[in-house]
């Protein structure tokens, strides 16, 4: 190829502008190595452009000495690295504080919920304690009852229903060793308002009734099990319905149950 044609094509001006392809650049480089006139042409183009561009700057450049100290340090790199780092840190900081605030609110709510739960648990605990106490009482009563039934010194006297209320029945457990009389009144109907049951100890010859007392808490006593004291040499027991407060002598028309003590 004719060198002058090559030079005059304008490829070298484009080479200096940096707009050629990689393969074109390599080709120009090769030509410069082989042909001094190509190299000189490139240097000349470059020199003209250096001169032109230099005059566009209205201000002179600073001396190289101002630049030299920055060459040994990695100044520019450090600067570019620190900036995003700070940003990252502050973003993380904000994110962390948002998380922290969220966490605080969450744990406050959690705390409130737990406190409510504790109150609920305490209430149900109190309630259960009351139930346990009730059960204990019931158990004690039952134990007492069983003790009475098993005791050798206690005599059972069944009282059967009488004309006033034939379906009625009652049981008397009489412990002569300590004069205690236990009445199981499960078989008696609830007394009408203003009336109470009165318990009588009887001797048969002659027929003498002795009041042992009235059953005032018949309705409220769930077990219908009552305790009386009886120091009499009773031969029979009877229960009558009397006006509240009891009567001096039994109203026989209102005799609900009656039973005699079998020979001892």
């Amino acid at each position, binding site marked *: 190829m004719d060198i002058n044609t090559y030079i*005059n*094509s*304008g*490829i070298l*001006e*484009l*080479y*200096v*502008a*940096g*707009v050629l392809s*990689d393969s074109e*650049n*390599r080709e120009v*480089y090769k030509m410069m190595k082989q042909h001094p006139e190509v*190299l*000189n042409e*490139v*240097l*000349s*183009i*470059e*020199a*003209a*452009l*250096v*001169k*032109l*561009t*230099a*005059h*566009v*700057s*209205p*201000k*002179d*450049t*600073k001396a*190289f000495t*101002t*630049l*030299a100290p*920055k*060459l040994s340090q*990695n*100044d*520019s*790199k450090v600067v570019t690295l620190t900036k995003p780092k700070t940003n990252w840190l502050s973003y993380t900081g904000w994110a962390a504080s948002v998380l922290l605030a969220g966490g605080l609110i969450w744990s406050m709510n959690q705390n409130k919920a737990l406190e409510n739960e504790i109150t609920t648990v305490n209430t149900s605990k109190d309630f259960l304690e009351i139930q346990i106490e009730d059960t204990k009482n019931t158990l004690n009563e039952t134990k007492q009852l069983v003790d009475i039934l098993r005791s050798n010194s206690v005599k059972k006297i069944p009282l059967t229903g009488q004309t006033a209320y034939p379906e009625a029945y009652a049981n008397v457990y009489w412990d002569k060793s300590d004069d205690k009389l236990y009445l199981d009144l499960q078989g008696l109907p609830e007394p009408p308002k203003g009336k109470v049951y009165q318990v009588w100890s009887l001797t048969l010859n002659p027929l003498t009734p002795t009041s042992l007392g009235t059953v005032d808490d018949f309705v409220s006593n769930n077990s219908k099990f009552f305790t009386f004291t009886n120091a009499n040499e009773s031969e029979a027991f009877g229960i009558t319905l009397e006006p509240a407060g009891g009567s001096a002598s039994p109203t026989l028309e209102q005799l609900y149950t009656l039973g005699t003590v079998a020979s001892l």
Partner: protein
Amino acid sequence: MQDIDLLVSQFQDKNERAFEKLYNMYSKSMQGVIFNIVKDNDIAEEVMQDVFIKAWHKADSYNAGKGRFFTWILNISRNAAIDKTRSKGFKNSGKNLNSDFFVDILQSPDNLDNSTDTIGIKKFVTKLGKACKEVIELLYFKGFTQKEASEELDIPLGTIKTRNRNCIQELRNDLL
């Protein structure tokens, strides 16, 4: 003239003296190219210094087989200047980025460089044809590719090549 290639290879071996010579040869040109983009003396000075520091640290990445040192650092300078105009601080500074060509800058009364050399250049630029001003502006100051320049000026690709050759010839006749 072949000294340049020697200086460049010494620069690549981290020779600070060689780099100083290259700086003295090209720093004002780069400051001019950068100024043509950022339109601010202090910013142009700062960006130019950053460009040379960057070039020093990236010396390994220059490959003589791929192009001239001048072309390499010209490319770094244009990119750094364009990056600067896109930076947050620059946008907030309210710079008026008018579309003045390098010729306008050369002829503006703000240009205080009144050396005989510059006066000569001013004279030359004044008589330089519009077509030449445009093609030199796009290819060397703005970094357009041949294709982009042909589209911008609406002239065939081949015409860019020959017109540019003729304009640079004119430049050489007057400046060298």
